[in-house]
Each structure stands twice: as C-alpha cells, then as structure tokens.
C-alpha cells in the first residue's frame, strides 16, 4: 500500500486530501456521509473576529462547469467558533485548519493570538483575499507588500503552522507567493476563487446582489493548475493546491504540478462523498503506476516533448 502521508511545512497530513474553506461549513453537516477522520484535513469556513452576516441574497449562480459565489464572510465569529464549532471538530483524527479573514491587520492578529494553542487547531489558513480599502476595494492579496504585512503580523502572533491563501486575480502570482513565504508563511494555499459575474438578460439585472462574485469549479481548473505550477517553480514552500478538483485524476494533476496536498471545494456540493473518494482514488493511482508514496508524484510533471 502506497504511503499517503504528506506535509505542508510543519503540518503533517495523513493523506493529501483536505476540504476547502467555505465548502464544508464547520464539518458537522457531514456526519451522515463519512467519518471526518478519513480526511487528511478539514479547512473551516472563514472565521472573523466578530460575527458577520455576509452579503445580501442572491449570492450564487451556476455557470458553465462552475459556480459563482458572493457569500461574503458570513460566520458566527471567533468566540462562537471556539465555543460551539471547535469542540465538535476536535474529536476527529484529522488536521483542523482554521481559515481566518479580516479587513484590518489588527483583526488578523487578534484571530491568530486567540487561536494559538487552542487544542484541536492544527494550522491557520490566512485568507488574504478579503477586499480591502488600501487596495482600492481589491483584495489584500493583490499587493505583495500588503500580503507580507498581513502574513508577517500573523507569523508574529502564532506558533501554529501558517498557510497563506492566495488570490489568483493578480498579474504575477509568483511575486505574491514569494513575499508571503519571505514574511513567514509555512505553506501556500492556492487558488481562491476567480472574480466574475453573471447577468440575467430577461430582467437585465446582475444575478448576484454583490455584482462581483468568485468563480469555482471545474471551469477554473486549467487556470488554477498553472498558478500552482508557476508558484511551485518560484517559491520555496509547499503548496495546498485547489480549484476545480472533482476527482482523483484532477487531484493527481495538481500534485504533478507541484502541490503537496489538495483541497476539495465545489466538488463537495456535487458529490458529498467526493473527498474520501479522492483519497481512495489517489491511492489507487499510486498503486497502479507503481509509486511507493505521494511524494514521488509531487512536482513530477514533465515537458510534453
């Protein structure tokens, strides 16, 4: 049986499959489907310091091989997360990665400090894709310097493994990746969603109240895969790859491109069993191709010719 263990810097995972933030709630909704201990890890919905109500409805719409979402950061807030969500998650033998979001650096620090040392929290995933005034309404993560500020501040506030979750809506993602690593990120998560929109020609209105929304699902896979490959070439940090992974073949593509682990997002909605089926499928792929461990395929892609 091939060895499925992998790591994202100091974070050890028993297998390379993690659920993606915002697509798995805080785990409890999955109890009927499978034992969460089968996952390599689980990333929570974004947690903010105070509870957030998110964006007005309508928040989502389907697109060709994808979906747009503008949920906003609806979540119960840090204290409710600790009191109500974490105790449930703690019972499973899987890495709990807490996705944290804020629009001010101070709030990122508050989150990091309070989560540091909480039993059951295996790592932080710092979501630098939140819209921010300093970037003219664009995300923090579009600017290498701002990214470094956020990551550096969180680094100083926690000893937990820290993963920087990058936005792909940038000209040079490798630059952002390097500045996150230089500022202390142990690993990089990519990609977050691609910004897009949709219009109803009948009503002549946007289909999303927030106008702008994030595109996820199979449609973005080619884009996300290149982003992972580019960053793997440029940055010296392990990558949690995601973006349109629907099955084990997709997951293997990301690992060949350089991801040390993969996250499953939109696929959870399409097939609640997707993440564990992907664990099994990766194992099968390794067996069938005679690989002794996932490590053998990470970054192993070759030129076409």
């Amino acid at each position, binding site marked *: 049986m091939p060895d499925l263990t992998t790591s994202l810097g100091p974070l050890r995972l028993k297998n390379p499959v993690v659920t993606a933030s*915002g*697509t*798995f*709630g805080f785990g409890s*909704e*999955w109890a*009927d*489907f499978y034992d969460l201990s089968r996952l390599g890890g689980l990333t929570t*919905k974004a947690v903010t310091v105070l509870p957030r*109500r*998110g964006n007005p*409805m*309508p*928040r*989502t*719409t*389907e697109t060709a*091989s*994808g*979906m747009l*979402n503008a*949920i906003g950061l*609806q979540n119960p807030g840090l204290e409710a997360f600790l009191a109500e969500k974490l105790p449930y998650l703690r019972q499973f033998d899987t890495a709990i990665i807490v996705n944290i979001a804020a629009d001010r650096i101070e709030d990122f620090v508050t989150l990091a400090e309070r989560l540091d040392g909480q039993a059951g929290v295996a790592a932080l995933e710092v979501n630098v894709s939140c819209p921010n005034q300093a970037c003219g309404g664009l995300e923090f993560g579009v600017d290498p310097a701002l990214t470094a500020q956020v990551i550096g501040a969180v680094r100083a506030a926690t000893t937990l493994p820290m993963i920087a979750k990058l936005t792909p809506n940038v000209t040079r993602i490798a630059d952002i990746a390097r500045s996150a690593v230089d500022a202390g990120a142990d690993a990089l998560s990519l990609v977050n969603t691609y910004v897009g929109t949709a219009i109803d020609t009948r009503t002549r209105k946007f289909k999303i109240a927030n106008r702008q929304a994030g595109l996820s*699902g*199979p449609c973005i896979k080619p884009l996300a895969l290149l982003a992972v490959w580019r960053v793997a070439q440029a940055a010296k940090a392990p990558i949690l790859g995601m973006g349109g992974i629907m099955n084990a073949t997709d997951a293997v593509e990301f690992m060949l491109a350089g991801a040390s682990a993969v996250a499953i997002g*939109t696929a*959870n*909605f*399409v*097939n*609640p*069993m997707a993440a564990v089926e992907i664990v099994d499928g990766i194992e099968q792929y390794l067996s069938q191709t005679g690989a002794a461990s996932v490590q053998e395929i990470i970054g192993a892609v070759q030129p076409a010719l």
Partner: protein
Amino acid sequence: MRHSLTASILSHRDLGDAQFEMTVLAPAIARDARPGQFLQALYVGAGSPLMRRPFSVFRTDPEAGTLAIVYVARGAFTIGMSALRVGASISLVGPLGNSFEPDPRPDVRHMLVAGGVGAPPLYFLAREMVAAGHAPESICVINGARSRDLLVAGADFAAVGVTLRETTDDGSAGRRGTVADELSDQIAASGGCAVYACGPTPMLRAVASLCVEAGVSCRVSLETVMPCGLGVCMGCIIKLRNDAEPEGYTLVRSCHEGPIFDAAEVIW
C-alpha cells in the same frame, strides 16, 4: 439520516404540460423521508448541469424502497432530466431539511395550500396525516395553478379522501382566482385552522400575510437557490424576524433550518 446514493429510475411518466413524475428505487431515502423534506438530485445526461437541484419528495413506499418526485421541465436541468429513461440512474442526496409536522391541537382544521409544483410535499403530508389517523374531513387541500392543465397531483389528493378545493387563475377548473382567495373564505368559514403552504414566492407571501392578519398559524415551504442543500455553503439564506438581534433578524439556511418556516417570522 442523510444518504448519498445512486438510484435507478423505475418509471418516468409524462403528466402533460411539461410535468413529470419520476419514481426511483432508493430504499434508504424512502425509509427516512418525511413530508416537506427534499432531495438534491443530479444526473449525467442530456444537458446535465454541474450543480444539483432540490426536489420535494412526492410519495414514498418504504416497503418497496421507492420514492417519487413530481417536477416541471422548465430550465436546462429539468428539461434534461425529463429525457432520462427508465433504467437510467440518478444521483440523490437526502432526505434534507425539516418537515411539515401536523399541528397537534385537537379539532384544528388543516389547510394544505399548494401552488403549482408546490403540491408534491403537501400531497405527501396529506397522505401521511391520513395514514397516521387524522380524519380526512379535517384536512382541506386548496390546490391552485394558472390553468387546469397545470394543476399538480389533483387525482392523487382526491384519492386520499381529503376535501379538495381547486383554483385556477383563468377559471378553467375550480374557482377562478388564487389559492389565497379560497383560503381567505375558508378561514372566515372555519374555526381553528392550521395552514401549510408550498408554492411560488408571490403566492406564499399572499398566504402568509393573510394568515398573519387572521392570526392563523401558518408554515410555509420556501424556494431558494440551493447550491449545496447540506447547510454548508450559505447560498440559501433567508431572514427570520428576531427582535433580540440588533438588526431585528436572524439569518438562517433555507436548506437546513428550513425549507419550512413559520410564516409570521419570515422577512420576505
């Protein structure tokens, strides 16, 4: 308990006017489903989209392990679904959401108000209530649609023995008018009522405001987009009145806390 399974299609009837009834073999879901609950369906077939769509359970036969849904082929998903043949597979996740539970007060008159494809969960409710010992006379179904051919499950309701009142916008069957018109008269004529409603949002709003004004208890099954149906994506949020909150409302998941809510609490 929720199940994720692949069901095989046992029958797929064209009911006319783009309505279809599909019966599938799905023992685990047939056993657990309650009236008002729904399934997230997905097929691989002509025009199959990426995301699942919610459909109410219309009928179950736990012994046979089967269940049925009734739907209207109106968009890409449902038009594609209507082309599935007997023997083909459909992937189902469910049962999901909360259910219609009969008002426990004695002597209450149960008013089941259905608009268009809102009828399936109310048919399931009527059947279950009668099976559970409610007197058919205590149950009045008001079934409405734009016209005669668009009335859903008329014969099925009749077969259960409940009182059936039909309304159509064009008068082609039953009373010319809306279910709200009929409900208003029924409430005026009866003593204690409990209302259970499912249908298009404008209809539900009319029913809800009628009931709130009349002080009649009313449960409505809401229809929103449901990307996951599992309570994790927050794409199906509605607002419930809550004076304890500074904003005066709580956000709840239509797929998880609902789809059925107290009409008096819903902020439309």
